[in-house]
């Protein structure tokens, strides 16, 4: 099956710092989504981004499908950004999301 690797596995930031999270995938995909899992376990949709670049406030994402990676940028981080960030992809020809193992972000005041 498809492999989805996220890096780094853990990240600790001072409030106000910027960060880049990476997602590599091993096969062609027709869907890529970034999620934030909050401390209550809810999966919050951040981006649907099978290709290109999108921005939403302090967050932006870029997917280069031909090179099989996606990046999530968090600028001016806040303590409320803490949690686990998951990248998930749908392999071409399928319709289920395959999740990476996540990046656990801790933002300290």
């Amino acid at each position: 099956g498809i492999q989805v690797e996220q890096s780094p596995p853990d990240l600790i930031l001072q409030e106000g710092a910027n960060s880049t999270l990476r997602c590599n995938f091993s096969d062609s995909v027709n869907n890529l989504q970034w999620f934030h899992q909050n401390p209550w376990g809810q999966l919050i949709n951040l981006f649907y981004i099978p290709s290109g670049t999108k921005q939403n406030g302090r967050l932006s994402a870029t997917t280069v499908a031909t090179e099989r990676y996606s990046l999530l940028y968090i600028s001016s981080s806040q303590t409320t950004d803490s949690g686990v960030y998951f990248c998930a992809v749908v392999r071409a020809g399928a319709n289920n999301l395959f999740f990476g193992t996540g990046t656990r972000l801790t933002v300290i005041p």
Partner: protein
Amino acid sequence: EPEVTQTPSHQVTQMGQEVILRCVPISNHLYFYWYRQILGQKVEFLVSFYNNEISEKSEIFDDQFSVERPDGSNFTLKIRSTKLEDSAMYFCASSGTGRVLAQYFGPGTRLLVL
């Protein structure tokens, strides 16, 4: 903004009991999914459902699991005889058809099997 809802938010059950987890997908969506997340692990796909039948399932989705769309709004996951290892967060998701294929997740049901 439309959202996926799930009930109950928490469920505690005894090993061997049957549980039914309920979901109301976004109203104009046509694809429905169940995923689970064992504590501390990644989210895993269980099953997808389209046009009143299962379209894909994982190896996790064995004979103890079943899904149903009993009416025009609900989508359920039944676990026939729960095991300790079924303890997990169960997420329902839905997506529409066409060019935008984003899946939208519900808040989850946390199942604990004792």
